[in-house]
């Protein structure tokens, strides 16, 4: 009979020193992400940030600064988790899913201490299982809704996003030039009868269907110890490819760090300076108009 502890153990057993360090640095990263997300929302999407959000953002910044000191790290995390939870509740039903993703991570980090052997192992398993869950469902929901079988969603996003030319500039290489021109001629101002939002290209259909196939398989492979590192690296590559097409960094940073939790080495610690520079850049770019900005899409 499968017990909860056996199922949890599919995501890994025990906790090494490197994994413990990983979890500590993921704690710091999660706080940094919460601060960065708040500043970017206030600066770039002011309509999505209420007065309460601005006050909460200042408090979350204080939690991040407090969290940098190991003595205050756990308390800072608990308060930050409550504050982000409040943001999620206050913005409901318009809450971006990415905010909820961030809240769950903060909640796990608030409830469990990586320095305790049992709690640390449970924290590692919980973060891994949560990542597997939402990654898998990303793929499954694409099958449920059926807009990837004939490339309908990717075709639409090429047209709809043609103003910023993000996905179009990448996806055009997967279809004949005539199909690309046909889609681009539809234009971003849609009218009844526009379309079809599908592409007569086998390569494009393979790519479109490949998206959900990968999202279904990769999470399952992350649960198999022997292939876990490879699955994590391939998933990181997948996220980087999507973020490169979307020219977005914020969700990608969070997702990559969640995938780094699957690796045994202290990669979150090693790569933290890189992510710190990235968030500092994004905050500077959001505040100072003269610094080129990436997209910020809290979905």
């Amino acid at each position, binding site marked *: 009979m499968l017990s*909860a502890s056996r199922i*949890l153990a599919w995501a890994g057993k025990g906790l090494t020193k490197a994994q413990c360090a990983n979890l500590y640095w993921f704690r710091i990263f999660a706080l940094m992400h919460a601060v960065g997300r708040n500043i970017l929302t206030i600066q770039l999407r002011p309509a999505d940030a209420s007065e309460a959000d601005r006050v909460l953002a200042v408090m979350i910044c204080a939690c991040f600064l407090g969290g940098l000191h190991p003595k205050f790290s756990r308390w800072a995390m608990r308060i930050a988790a409550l504050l982000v939870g409040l943001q999620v509740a206050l913005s409901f*039903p*318009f*809450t*971006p*899913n990415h905010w*909820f993703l961030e809240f*769950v991570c903060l*909640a*796990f980090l608030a*409830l*469990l201490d990586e320095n305790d052997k049992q709690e640390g192992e*449970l924290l590692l398993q*919980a973060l891994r*299982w*949560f990542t597997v*869950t*939402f990654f898998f*469902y*990303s793929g*499954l*929901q*694409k099958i*449920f*809704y*059926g*807009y*990837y079988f*004939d490339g*309908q*969603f990717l*075709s*639409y*996003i090429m047209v*709809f996003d043609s103003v910023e030319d993000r996905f179009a500039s990448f996806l055009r290489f997967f279809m004949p030039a005539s199909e690309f021109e046909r889609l681009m001629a539809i234009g971003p101002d*849609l*009218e*009844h*009868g*526009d*379309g*079809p*939002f*599908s592409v007569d290209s086998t390569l494009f259909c393979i790519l479109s269907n490949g998206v959900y196939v990968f999202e279904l398989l990769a999470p399952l492979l992350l649960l198999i110890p022997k292939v876990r590192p490879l699955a994590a690296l391939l998933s990181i590559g997948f996220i980087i490819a999507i973020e490169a097409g979307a020219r977005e960094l914020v969700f990608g940073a969070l997702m990559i760090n969640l995938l780094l939790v699957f690796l045994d080495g202290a990669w979150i610690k090693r790569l933290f300076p890189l992510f710190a520079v990235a968030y500092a850049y994004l905050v500077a770019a959001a505040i100072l108009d003269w610094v080129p900005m990436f997209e910020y899409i809290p*979905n």
Partner: protein
Amino acid sequence: MVTALVVLAAWPLVHYGVGQRGSFNPWKGFGWAMYCVPPWHFEVKVRQIDPPQMSPLGQQGAQLLQQVQREFLKTRGTLGPLAKPDKVAETIFYLGPNVSTIDVYVLKGHVDRKTAMYVEEWSYIYRYQYPGRLVATHRVQN
């Protein structure tokens, strides 16, 4: 913690089921269905029934109505038919106290999954009476 993980694992299935019945936006509600469905587009139109001539609103009135319509469309874009244009109707009656009956039309634009064509249809008609009572809802089947 295990309970939380089980809830997080089961919720997306519930989300899909509830979404199909209630037609709320799959991009919201923590079901991890972002980037699954091309975003919907909504518009709202008001037709005065009694009296039949549209009353002039003035600049301030028009701005107020626009803001209320924008808020309704944002809510409609998330909750689907669960969001009714009650406030739009109340605002119309507030701005034109001599108006006794109006119809509010809601248009939905979406990509049809089977044909892959963009379809716009006036999907719902709501009839309101002064000062904002919903008396009938008509779902337009195309």
